[in-house]
């Protein structure tokens, strides 16, 4: 084989390896976030930077994703990126007549992405408060009742816990039960709807 040819091949391979190392190094400490948009040709930006691929590597924390396309209302999603919270689905809404017509063809795909968004949001909420899978909890011995609701509507929303039908001792028992289940009350949004704070005169979440 020609020496020049072998050398050229080796240099090309070397360049690929060097590029691979560079890419890998630039991804250290970052999480791969998969992005899906319908229409697929939407322009996607993350924190204002245009993204061309279907995934992007980002540092953990909050990031803003926006998908836009002519004739559509842009779709925005704020995501608190983590190892387990790494999917963003964006669905710009058709506004112009031609966009409405073409969005009819995308209906099935939109539904599929919508389903993935709902699943990702459910996973994200469970990650933020694993305790919600064990609620509601009602105990007469406590006595207390713990329910939960969701605060906010986007990807940064979080579950809140309502501790009710209780007494001072019962509220402490409820907090102890939360701890015994491996959750830390400090990290949860806990509200006591039937507690009237004697010092401030209002509920705890007034």
């Amino acid at each position, binding site marked *: 084989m020609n*020496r020049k040819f*072998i*050398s050229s091949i*080796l*240099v090309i*391979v*070397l360049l690929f*390896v*060097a590029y*691979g*190392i560079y890419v*890998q*190094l630039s991804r*250290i*400490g970052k999480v791969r976030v998969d992005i899906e948009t319908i229409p697929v040709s939407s322009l996607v930006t993350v924190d204002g930077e245009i993204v061309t691929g279907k995934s992007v590597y980002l*540092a*953990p924390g909050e990031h803003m994703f926006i998908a836009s396309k002519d004739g559509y209302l842009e779709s925005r999603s704020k995501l608190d990126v983590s190892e387990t919270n790494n999917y963003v689905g964006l669905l710009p809404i058709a506004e112009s007549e031609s966009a409405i017509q073409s969005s009819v063809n995308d209906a099935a795909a939109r539904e599929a992405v919508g389903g993935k968004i709902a699943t990702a949001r459910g996973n994200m909420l469970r990650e933020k408060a694993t305790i919600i899978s064990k609620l509601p909890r009602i105990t007469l011995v406590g006595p207390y009742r713990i329910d939960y609701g969701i*605060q906010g509507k986007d990807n940064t929303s*979080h579950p*809140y816990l309502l501790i009710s039908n209780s*007494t*001072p001792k019962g*509220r*402490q028992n409820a*907090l102890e039960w939360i701890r015994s289940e491996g959750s*830390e*009350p*400090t*990290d*949860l*949004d*806990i509200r*006591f709807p039937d*507690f*009237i*704070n*004697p*010092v*401030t005169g209002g509920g*705890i*979440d007034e």
Partner: protein
Amino acid sequence: MSRKFVVLLSFLITLILAGVSFFWYIGQQRFIKINYDNCQSATISYEYNKKVQSKNINPPSTISIPKTAKNVVAECKPSDGFASTNITDVGSEVFLQPDFSESKRELISKNNSAKILDAIYQKYPKLRDYKVVKQSVYGRGLWYVATFDAKEYDYNSDRLRIIIKQEDSGFNVVSKPEIIFTKYQYPLIPRDVLLQANNL
């Protein structure tokens, strides 16, 4: 082939193999930047292949551990006058900043108790009807926490906690009296302080 070409070829192949090995190694590692102050040294321990392993860090630096390591804990061996501390929620960067030792915190708390209670009663006079259960100081004297019990039992006589911050202007009450503090209600107060206040 000339000798020169063989040497060059060998060099390039070695370089490629080294690059690929490095590339593979990087892919298997998780990098954690460890920062600390007032620690003699820090330790990262983790579970890998069902064995607990640890790495000593001195001075602060970036270390790598296997990507699949579990139960990663960063721990500080404190300097004199500081308490031991550890972080279990280890991300890509860790700051180990030990609090004052318990004896030092008790002394600071005792010396400032009257001023702190004055600040609390001024903002929430109704707390005078409660008895002070405990007071403590955290965050190197920046944050104070006090707990209060009602003198009489009724349906709202829960133990209440309150947080005070030492600022240039003096002691400022920065929370309402609460049954429990959460990071959602008090995002501006460090989580460590909220956690310790909830456990006082």
